[in-house]
Every structure is written in C-alpha cells, then in structure tokens.
C-alpha cells in the first residue's frame, strides 16, 4: 500500500453537474486531480493533486432483467449491484475481482471503478472482459464537459465506440458518471475439477485440451501445483460436461468440488487470496497461453511465486524481481502492487501507439489533470 499524501483535499461531488463544474474549474487553473471510485483497485497514492471520488454519484438508474441491461451511476457499490442481479438469477458475467485483500485497502468497490479498470476475473476466458459487456457511458472529460457515448442496447455501432476507450483508461481520459452494462443469466449449477501435483507445463496442457472442447469451461487457473477447471451448466448440462471432460483428460485423476466448494475456490482464485496480506510487488502479465509455462518459470527464477488464470493467458507474479528484469521476461507486464517499487506501473507502448495514445489524452484531457501520469509515465 502506498501511503497517501495527508495534505490533499478530498472532493466528492454529489451529481454529474457538480462534477462537471468542479473539473471545469480545475481545467481553467490546471490543477491536477487524483480520480477514484472506492479507491480499492489501483494504487494512485503517488499521483499529484486533490482526491476526487465518484462515490457520492451513486444509485441504480434502471435494471431490466428481461433485456439483460443494467444502468448505474458510477459510485454505486458493486455489492449492491451484485445482490440486485443475483435476486433475478443474473450476474456480471466478467466476474470482477475484489482487490482489497491484495492491495491492503479498505473502501467500497464501485461499478465505476470496475469499468475504469476493465476489471475482469476468471470467467473472462469464456464470457469476455468488462469492456465486452459495456453498452454505454456518461462521463466528464478533462475540460468539464458532460458527455455520453453508446447507449443501453446490446447492438450499437452508431458513431465511434468511446466506451472501449474509457474502459480500462483508469480515469485518465474522463471521469465516468454512469455506465450501462449487459447482464447475463447466472448458470444455476457448477462444479470444479482439480488436478493435483501437476507442473505448470502440465497445467497448460490440461487447459488447452479442455478449452478446445465445446463444454464452455468458465475457469482455468493454476496455483501451487494444482490446476483447476470450472464447469457451469443448466439442467443436465453440468453432469454431461463434467463426464466428457473427465473422459478426455483420463487417466489423470481429478478431485471433484461441489457447488459450494466451487464458489469458494473461484472467489479465492479471483481475488488472489494466495497473494493477499503480503507486501511483495505483484505483477499482472499477459501472454499467449502456450508461453505461460516458460514465462512463469522465468519469473519464479527471479524469486517469488507465479500463478495462472485464463487458461494460461494471465500470469500473476508476486516476488522481488526488479521492473527491468520482469519486463525483460514479459512484454505485457503491469505492476499492480508496488511493494516499494517506483517507476511506471504500465508497460511501455510502441512509439507509434504511444503517439496515438498521447494524441487522445491531449484531446480528452488537454491540461493533463486527470490521474496525470498514471498510465503513461
């Protein structure tokens, strides 16, 4: 956890209009702002300026289960939304993680923070990322303009898709005030197959075999010598898919976890319980799944531990490796928990891509006041 600057003011506008006025004023005077939702997802303590939270811009605007559509203000607590969806047998299929344990932070995760971080958990493998479920946004740009893009319908190609840009921009292009998301039926039955005493190479081989089937594996993760596959289904689907996968992976022995154990295990995997409560730097590394074993081994050689998610497409590395050493192993490495490290958290972009990104930042936030330097320094 990065210590916060005690001298900064905390601002929490109660409405979109108030937020717009506040940013317009800061734009005029070029005063930076540190943007947060619940402050639970990204370390921003090192950024300059007063803290601007969207927590007070809160509340579900509409939820239509028959249309699989939710519209909520950015500060709405994630818990509140998940409970509301669960009551209708639906969920946010991209399964955003709760990062509080890993980052050692209090606070209440918000839906705006989820979207700003494009936070996507184990089910991304099957269902896509947060950005794939985002239908529309309202936001305030770096000049204080209140803007909207997209809408609330599931198919929409009207104009440029700025939601994709805002999703994962961590507040650097604009401050989200409202998001429209697609919701999906929460499949009622689930189980997990656990393969123990396997190497990282064997784990990825298990994942690749399972993910080449039509059985819609919704989680494929590895930690501490165990590879886990999550299966979900409706009615007879679950047993059928389980049996077909067991037959495919025979003669490997698998432990079978029931519904309740599955829910607990995947919550732990999602929230990185195995790396919580520690101080060491934590890296999120994206690779081609077949490159995961070599990457994980090279990172572990720097000291510390690695685990896999997304069938090997995501490597988590917790250890003392220097940024230089980590980035030498992995091109797409983001520093999630600094653990005392300084320097850029995000990987460098190719020069031409960096020029495009800078051009966009210049147009969305001409004075450079929104989470200044978070992504590009």
């Amino acid at each position: 956890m990065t210590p916060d600057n005690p001298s900064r003011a905390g601002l929490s506008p109660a409405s979109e209009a108030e937020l717009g006025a506040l940013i317009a004023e800061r734009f005029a005077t070029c005063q930076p702002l540190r943007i947060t939702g619940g402050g639970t997802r990204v370390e921003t303590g090192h950024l300059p300026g007063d803290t601007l939270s969207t927590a007070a811009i809160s509340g579900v605007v509409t939820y239509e289960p028959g249309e699989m559509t939710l519209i909520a203000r950015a500060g709405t607590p994630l818990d509140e939304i998940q409970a509301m969806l669960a009551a209708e047998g639906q969920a946010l299929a991209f399964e955003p993680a709760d990062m509080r344990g890993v980052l050692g932070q209090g606070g209440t995760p918000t839906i705006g923070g989820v979207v700003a971080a494009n936070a996507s958990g184990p089910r991304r493998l099957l269902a896509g990322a947060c950005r794939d479920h985002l239908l529309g946004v309202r936001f305030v740009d770096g000049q204080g303009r209140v803007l909207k893009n997209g809408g609330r319908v599931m198919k929409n190609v009207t104009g440029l898709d700025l939601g994709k840009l805002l999703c994962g921009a961590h507040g650097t292009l604009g401050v989200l005030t409202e998001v429209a998301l697609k919701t999906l039926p929460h499949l009622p039955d689930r189980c997990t197959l656990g393969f123990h005493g396997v190497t990282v190479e064997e784990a990825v081989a298990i994942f690749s075999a399972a993910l080449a089937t039509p059985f819609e594996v919704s989680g494929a993760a590895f930690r501490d010598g165990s590879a886990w596959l999550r299966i979900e289904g409706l009615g007879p689907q679950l047993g059928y898919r389980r049996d077909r996968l067991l037959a495919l992976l025979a003669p490997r022995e698998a432990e079978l976890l029931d519904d309740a154990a599955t829910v607990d295990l995947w919550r732990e995997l999602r929230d990185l319980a195995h790396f919580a409560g520690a101080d060491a730097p934590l890296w999120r590394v994206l690779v081609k799944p077949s490159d995961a074993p070599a990457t994980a081994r090279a990172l572990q050689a720097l000291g510390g531990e690695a685990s896999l998610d997304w069938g090997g497409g995501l490597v988590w590395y917790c250890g003392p490796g220097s940024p230089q050493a980590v980035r030498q192993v992995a091109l797409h490495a983001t520093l999630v928990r600094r653990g005392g490290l300084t320097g850029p958290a995000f990987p460098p972009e190719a020069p031409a891509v960096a020029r495009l990104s800078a051009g966009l930042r210049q147009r969305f936030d001409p004075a450079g006041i929104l989470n200044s330097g978070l992504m590009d320094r």
Partner: protein
Amino acid sequence: MSGIAMPRPDAGILARAPQIVAALREVLPEDAVIWDPEETRAYECDALTAYRCPPLAVVLPRTTAEVAAAMRICHEMRVPVVPRGAGTSLAGGALPTADSVIIATLRLREVLEIDTQNRFIRVQTGVTNLSVSAELEPQGFFYAPDPSSQLACTIAGNIAMNSGGAHCLKYGVTTNNLMGATVVLPTGEVVELGGPEMGPTGLDLMGLLCGSEGQLGIVTEATLRILPRPEGARPVLIGFDGAEVAGECVARIIRSGVLPVAIEYMDDVCLRAVEAFAHAGYPDCAAVLIVEVEGSPAEIDHQIARIREIADALNPVEFRESRNADEAMAIWKGRKSAFGAMGRLGDYICLDGTVPVGQLPYTLKMIGELSRQHGLEVANVFHAGDGNMHPLILFNANKPGDLERAEAFGNDILRLCVDVGGCLTGEHGVGIEKRDLMTKQYDGPDLEIQMAVKDAFDPRWLLNPAKVFPLDASQPWREEAAAR
C-alpha cells in the same frame, strides 16, 4: 440521385489526377492501380446502390506494405482515401467521391496462422467472413460473427463496421472476437494493436478502431478469437397471432436463463413474401420466432423443453420442433431467403436501428402506423434477442419521389428507435445513410469528442470523407485540417 448530400469534389485534386495516378503506380505493382473510367465504374457504389460516384482511382494492394505505400502517397498529395472491403455496406460506408482514391482490401487474401492451442487465427483482412470458418472446420473450430452477407463480406469490412449476425446473441459481435489488428494509419504509418494475448494493457485503441467505419485507419491483418464448434444446434419455430405476444415471448426466454444462440423474428408481411418465394411451409400468422439452441442432443432437448414451457403459456398458434437436419434446414430456409424474397416484391431500404427488447412490441406498432402515414409497405425481419430491428421499406425506384418518401419513412423509424431508448444502427454502420441523423442520438459535445478522436488519428481528415459525422458539424474540423 436523392437526398443525401456529398461534398463537392476538389477541383485541384481532379486536375492533378494524372500526377496522383503516376505517383501511385511508381510505388505499386502494375496491376494494382486502376484509373480507366471503364474499370473504376465497378467501384462507384456499395450495397446502398441509390448513391453512385466513380472514384479518381482504385488501388488493389496485396500486402500491408503496399497499403501503407498508397496511403503515404495520398497523405502527401492530400487526396481523400475511401477504404473498401467487399462493398457490401448497406449504409454507403464505401461510397467514393470523385476526388478520392479507393484502397480496397480484396487482394489481401492470405490466411497467416491458425493456432488452436492458443485459440486464434491470423488473416489478411481481404478474406471473406465465411472462408475464415471454412478454414477452421477441419480443426473443429469456428469464427463466431456471421453477418448475413458472410459469403461475400470481408474481415476488413466486418472490423470497420463491427459486424454482428444472427448468432451474436450468444457469441457477441466483431469487437468481442477481435484480438489484434495491423493498422495502416492515414499517414501511411503501420501500427500493431493487440495480439494473441488477452489485452489490452494500455488504452483500448483496437476497441476504438473496431466499428470506426474507416475513419481512423485501414486494418490489413487481424488476429481473431476462434471457438470450438458446438456439438449440435437445433432451431424451433414458434408462431404467434400478435406481435406483442411474440415480443413478450422473447423477453421471457431471455429472463428464464436459457441463452439461445439466436432469436429471429419475422412479421406477417415478410412471412407471406417468404412463403411465395421459398415455400418454407411457415404458418400464416402475425409473427414467427425462430429460436436456436446448441449443445449435445440431451442438452438441446432440455433447452427446447424450457422454451416450449415458456411459449405454451403464451398460446402460440404453432410450436414446431426440428427432429433432424432436414427439418432444421427447413425452419431456417425461409429466414435465410427473407431478403431475396423481399427483393422480388420490389425495391427496398433495409434499416438497422436497435431498441431495448422490452420496447419491441410498441416499436412494431408504431412502425405500422408510420407505414400507413407514409403510404409505403414495411416488412420486419430481425434479430429479436438483442432488439436489432431490420425494417424493410418497400418502394418503387422507377417512380419519381418514391425513394425520397422511403428515406423519409426510414428516418422516422430511426428517430423512433432513438426515442424509445435505442440507437440508429445496430450493425450496418452510419455511413452516409444515417450521417445527418447523428444529431438525433448525440448532442453537439458528444459528436465533438468523437470528431476530436478522428482528428487524433487523421489530422488531414482524408480518410473516408463525408461519412459518419454530419457535414455541417465536421466542417470546422475539415477546414482546420486543410489549413494544416
């Protein structure tokens, strides 16, 4: 020629045509540059055939480097560029101007890499949508987006328009299945966005590019997510005696937790046309739903039983299950021939607005009223699961004023879609067709920020001119760009 204005061609560029062609020929192979008016005429329009204009020249590159070379010339000589895939746009997205050079992706036809272990395929973007899935069939995989023009349309066009298709209810549209893109920027610079990793780590430039209708760059290579083929799929046909109750059935199916891969809707006008054309044996009723589910035989049976339960509570006039592949094909036959069948009734405009699923019954009722007001018949056939409507307005192109009446009717329908909480276009794109309606959906500043994004990619405003943004809104941007 009809109501949608295009900017007056730049006389200076027209006068420099020989030099422009010569410069292009210098950097491209002999057969890659077309400027003979007899030949450029083939590129004068896309599938919005009411609007035509031959371009100054057409470039048919075979590699990313050739696309980049052509773009660089056009950038240096300040010549507008119109990107073109297969030219199947229904919105005029590939309509040239007389002073523009078309850069077509048709000859970029290589499949570069198939990697089933990491679940992607990398292709040059001139390959057709259907051929991508055909390439993957031996490996047991497929590429999910399936626009109805999939036999002809190319991946480049799919990316430009963020194309969907019947099965996107379950699998998403192009943006959800695109992992990486090689992009030629308007300056001729080449950038790689995304790749086989599940990114991005920085700003989602690829997400921005997908569906940008050729405003930001030309995608020459793409990495696409591939999926294992389902074990089987089976449709059911459900007939109802009212549009409203059919709409209710759609909402109840979605709410039930069964997630079909497709829910298609056809109304009575369409049903009659299809019957006369394809003899699909559809019931004569107000509305038909085709609902398709996937899985093993037992899974399919279970899902169909759930759907039957939901439908039965709404008193359908018919619930038809397919017991084998032939019966399944018979159920899809009419839907797949719908556009051909409508074509036999005369000329039509195909619209593409999306509405919230709960607003479908009201929207259908209002479209019926607008049809009476405008004195033109309309048929409705669309992807009901996601509210993406495709009203087909029938008119007679040979009758003076009929196209204009049809366009006015279409604009009223699109305004209605926005009024009920939907949007102007679900999968066809804005193009020129809906350009001037953009102010209905977006306020001035909402459009300004989109044009600012265009400006960041295309500082000379040369790519795909007069599309997407209303001409009066983009004028200050274009003037400033010209002065740079």
